[in-house]
């Protein structure tokens, strides 16, 4: 029993660490999609922000400056997607893919330029774990949930915050309307384009938080391609969670748990590569089971042109 509980705490801790970037990205994706704009560029947004954070910390020596850089990068790239998709009515999926490619190439490019090397950046000042007094003393779960990076605590706060924002404020009401029935919102005198820009911008900021945690909350360094599909898994978590902040966060934790298992599972029985497949296969199963059809914001993916 002791042993079991002993193994549980690191597992849970790992789950939290894995889930955090997914939660951020999923919440970001929610804002974009609820406004009616598909955002499969979450992957790229996370990646560029992960890099920007490290670069910023490298130059300034401060993790917080790095965070600012990351938010700026995420916002900037997201606005490119917004400009292409909303104003220029580009196909949203292609635009998102282009963002991913731009981030991939861009980070490689900048790695050389800024750090003079490829692969992994030098270590920088990151967001080290900070234990919350009292809460972190709770047996088993205390260390797992409350002895984590500050960004993790931010993530905890984000879930109820985004929930309130989307379901209790005028902004949230209009956002939801824009994604479901833009004509209705338009005739009520609210600008559909403006709401969509907000939605995409928020997705950039939240995805940036996810990216920053990835590079500076765990490793304190940037590795090329480190997002490794997390942006897409976050999207699946969003769909699984029915485009609801709490549901998406829950799904993200589920994926995080699966990822945590990968490292705990005996590798001589199941090869590493098959373990690594699990999150991706899980995503496929989730999508096949839930189709994602009936529940998505009704007006998603289509550019809106006023009559």
């Amino acid at each position, binding site marked *: 029993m002791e042993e079991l509980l002993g193994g549980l705490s690191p597992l849970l801790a790992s789950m939290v660490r894995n889930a955090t970037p997914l939660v951020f990205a999923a919440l970001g994706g929610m804002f974009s999609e609820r406004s009616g704009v598909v955002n499969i560029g979450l992957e790229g947004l996370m990646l560029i922000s992960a890099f920007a954070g490290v670069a910023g910390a490298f130059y300034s020596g401060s993790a917080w400056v790095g965070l600012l850089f990351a938010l700026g990068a995420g916002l900037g790239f997201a606005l490119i997607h917004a400009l292409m998709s909303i104003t220029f009515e580009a196909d949203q999926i292609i635009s998102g893919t282009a963002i991913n490619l731009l981030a991939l190439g861009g980070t490689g490019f900048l790695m050389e330029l800024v750090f003079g090397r490829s692969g992994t950046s030098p270590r920088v000042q990151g967001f080290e774990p900070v234990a919350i007094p009292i809460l972190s003393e709770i047996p088993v779960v205390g260390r797992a949930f409350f002895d984590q990076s500050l960004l993790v605590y931010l993530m905890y706060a984000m879930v109820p915050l985004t929930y309130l924002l989307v379901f209790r404020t005028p902004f949230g009401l209009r956002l939801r309307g824009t994604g479901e*029935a833009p004509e209705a919102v338009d005739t*009520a*005198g609210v600008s559909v384009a403006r709401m969509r820009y907000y939605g995409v911008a928020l997705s950039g900021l939240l995805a940036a938080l996810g990216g920053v945690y990835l590079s500076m909350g765990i490793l304190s360094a940037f590795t090329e391609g480190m997002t490794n599909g997390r942006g897409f898994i976050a999207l699946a978590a969003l769909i699984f969670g029915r485009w609801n902040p709490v549901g998406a966060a829950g799904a993200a934790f589920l994926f995080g748990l699966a990822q945590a298992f990968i490292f705990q599972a005996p590798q001589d029985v199941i090869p590493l590569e098959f373990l690594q497949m699990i999150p991706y296969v899980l995503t496929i199963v989730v999508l096949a089971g839930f189709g994602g059809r009936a529940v998505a914001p009704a007006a998603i993916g289509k550019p809106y042109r006023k009559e």
Partner: protein
Amino acid sequence: MAEREPTGGRAGTAGEAPVVLEMRGITKTFGAVRANDGISISLRRGEVLGILGENGAGKSTLMKILYGLYSPDAGEIFLDGERAEIKDPKDAVERGIGMVHQHFTLIPPLTVAENIVLGAEPRRGLAVDLQRAVRETGELCERYGLRVDPRARVADLSVGEQQRVEILKALYREARILVLDEPTAVLTPQETEDLFSTLKELVASGLSIILITHKLGELLGVSDRITIIRDGRVVDTVPAARTDERELARLMVGREVLLRVEKEEAEPGGVRLQAEGLVVRSSRGTVAVRGVSLEVRGGEILGIAGVDGNGQTELAEALAGTRPAEGGAVRLDGEDVTRLGAKARKRRGLAYVPEDRMAKGLVPDFALYENHALKTYDEPPYASRWGWLRPAAMRRRAAEALRAFDVRPPDPDLPARSLSGGNQQKAILARELSGDPGVIIAYQPTRGVDVGAIEFIHGQLLRQRGEGKAILLISLELEEVRSLSDRILVLCDGRIVGEVGPEATDEELGLLMAGRAG
């Protein structure tokens, strides 16, 4: 046509009340079509003005101008005696004009209260004061006698209730003039009665109402005056108390006959197309066709008349095989084809000209020769046994057919998109009729098509009739149905409500189409 001044109309006061809205000489042209031609209407305080007209008469264009969605090419609008230029819907709302659209602009997953306040939300700090929204909605319901649960999700409401939410939206924004566009098109008779008592309450509270519809019977029950619009012009404005359904039907539908087609006597042969108790659902899940039975003989044209949205599309598609039937049967030359798809029916000699040439009848970016082979591309001579296409053969056949059917230009390589509407329609006809079909279903064959093409298409249909083919013509153009058909069935609310001959009067047809037995 002069406007007769209402004297001693309903409710007594309507005659002396001030004019709250006047639209003078409104003209609006879209390309070659003059939707509104010098239309003038006036609305008094506390009055219900009915605007009556067929599909395409120009009613909705007029209302879109009032609501700020279009600006008129000529004419002026006066609100409370002052000239007003309505820039956009927001402006219209601020001026007290509220519009209840035919197709609701509601957000289904949100609640009634949320839908009503969106854009003008009551706040409590940073949050929406939902309680106040609910309370204020409740107060509005009380005041105007509308019954709706503010906390209910719009998606869960009945159509009648959803309409009440639309009305509440306008009332919440303090509308003084309420415009309802075809409000009863989607309501049951009971819901219609509820709506009308609501309107009476609203009027008693000082609102002025414009009711746009083609359902003349209802207008008589609730309006003070009725303005009839036909072909973009005002025909007349009459007080409701001084007219009746027959006169309204005549005013709405009667017109100089544009196309009187010469046709010989019908010599109908055996039954070639049959429907028995057909039940079909629409894409939204509602039952659109409720047990329709019909027979079409060789050598005759059976016309189906009716107002748009009464099940025509679902009926046509179920007969053609592009939509499954939930119940009943379809027979082609005696064979039960209910379970067969469109291709199989085509092979048994069924041709189908759909109502939407750009979205269904043609692939707009395909060349004409590819469109010509849309249903036959995998049969000889267009394809070999191994699936190899023969574009040369396709082009040849297409070129012949295009010329024979007067498609201009008869170039098989042109993308279908580049042709005019009439030529596209002729190209579809060329395809469907080339295979020597035994049964032809034509749904809105001349929609949006120029007069020359209309004549040609009508001529083609009559020729097929002369050759002994069975033709089912479904059209929203009454003139077309009348001039071509040997018999006419009227479709209303998914049922056949009557059969008449082409010599039937406008009143008879108008009444049947509006759901009133003749």
